[in-house]
């Protein structure tokens, strides 16, 4: 292989790396439209940033099959990167491995909690195998407002696909729980 081929690549690499690093910074400012305190990076749905033929390719994994926010999230990501001058940008839908709430960052969990949403605990992989036919009483959850664990689940489904509805018996406030899946 001649130097003529190697050299441009060697020069291109730092540029590519810098573009990717700047893109990660931009994406840390793109929030989920339905939980607008947590970024797409904290949520763990941006899996990878690559540069292919000059295009910045963002690999995104959906949280739920039917999440209605998916398209909005993709548009927000492309718009933010283009505005920052990092385009052209393309989204690559990456279904496997399936997203799990375990991918939400520690910072993301703290932001959810501060927003009044109880963050998901670790996914109980054992529980998912022999499924019980009567819903088990979910493990007690700390109220994001008063920290009491005297709480109960009101509904298994909430205002968005990713949340369930709970209430705190101590402070009387309802709150949402980001479901561990």
């Amino acid at each position, binding site marked *: 292989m001649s130097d003529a081929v190697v050299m441009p690549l060697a020069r291109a690499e730092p540029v590519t790396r810098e573009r990717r690093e700047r893109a990660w910074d931009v994406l840390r400012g793109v929030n989920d439209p339905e939980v607008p305190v947590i970024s797409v990076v904290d949520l763990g749905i941006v899996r990878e940033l690559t540069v292919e033929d000059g295009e910045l390719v963002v690999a995104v994994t959906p949280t739920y099959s039917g999440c209605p926010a998916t398209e909005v999230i993709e548009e927000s990501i492309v718009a933010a990167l283009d505005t920052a001058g990092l385009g052209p940008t393309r989204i690559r839908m990456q*279904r496997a491995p399936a997203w799990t709430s375990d991918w939400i960052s520690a910072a993301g969990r703290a932001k959810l909690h501060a927003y009044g949403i109880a963050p998901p605990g670790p996914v109980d992989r054992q529980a998912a195998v022999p499924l019980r036919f009567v819903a088990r009483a979910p493990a007690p959850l700390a109220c994001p407002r008063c920290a009491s664990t005297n709480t109960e689940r009101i509904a298994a489904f909430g205002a968005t696909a990713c949340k369930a509805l709970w209430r705190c018996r101590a402070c009387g406030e309802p709150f949402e729980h980001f479901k561990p899946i």
Partner: protein
Amino acid sequence: MPASITVSSHPSVQYLLRIGDTCLIHAQRLAEWSGHAPIVEEDIALTNMALDLIGQARAVLTRAGSLEAELGGEAHDEDQLAFLRDERDFRNCTVVELPRGDFAVTMLRNCALAIFLKLLWERLAASSDGELAAIAGKAVKEARYHQEHASGWVVRLGDGTAESAARSKAALELLWPYFAEIFDDDAIDDAAAASGLGPRWSALAEEWRAELGAVLAAAKLEPPAERAFRSTGKTGVHSEHLGYVLAEMQTLQRTYPGGVW
């Protein structure tokens, strides 16, 4: 009115349509509860489940349409497959197109379907088709959650008041004959099993009976006797109900072709 499309009769495409259409029509019936459920939490739950199922249907139909092109035919997108096929070209199991009935019918059907779909997605996660395997890896988690929710209701209603128990029993009598179709194999299943695309659906029957049987036992409901009746939705010959479902579901796209919002 835009002309209806014709879909590939290749067994792999047909196998995918059976999955996608079962999810889609099931979702359409569940969505009918929006604004009508007995309590607001269930209104939200039923429509959330419909949303998961529509997401699954979109993904599987998209894969079916791209596979058509890979097999040398014309590609179709998810919207064309959902909105521009005629009744005879839908491949859903008949049970999902039956009217939503009362809450007992809806919950029993949800429970039976969620168990079936969970067992199916578990196996499809190892499909020879990478895209289908990826869809299944996500969908199985959703189906588990649906199963747990619906099972809890079947038990509460079956083992509840005299009224809820009577309605649960009636729901079981109504739906039971339609479940048999799900597990009847044909050449499409043979081809899927041979290519590694997915399991024969009969292979899920035993586990399905055991899991549903446990729920029914807890609900103090007796599984009815097997009957000779067989519905035939998977081969495109549907009950009188699907036409009405499609009329409502397809009218916008048929009236305003290509309309988007």
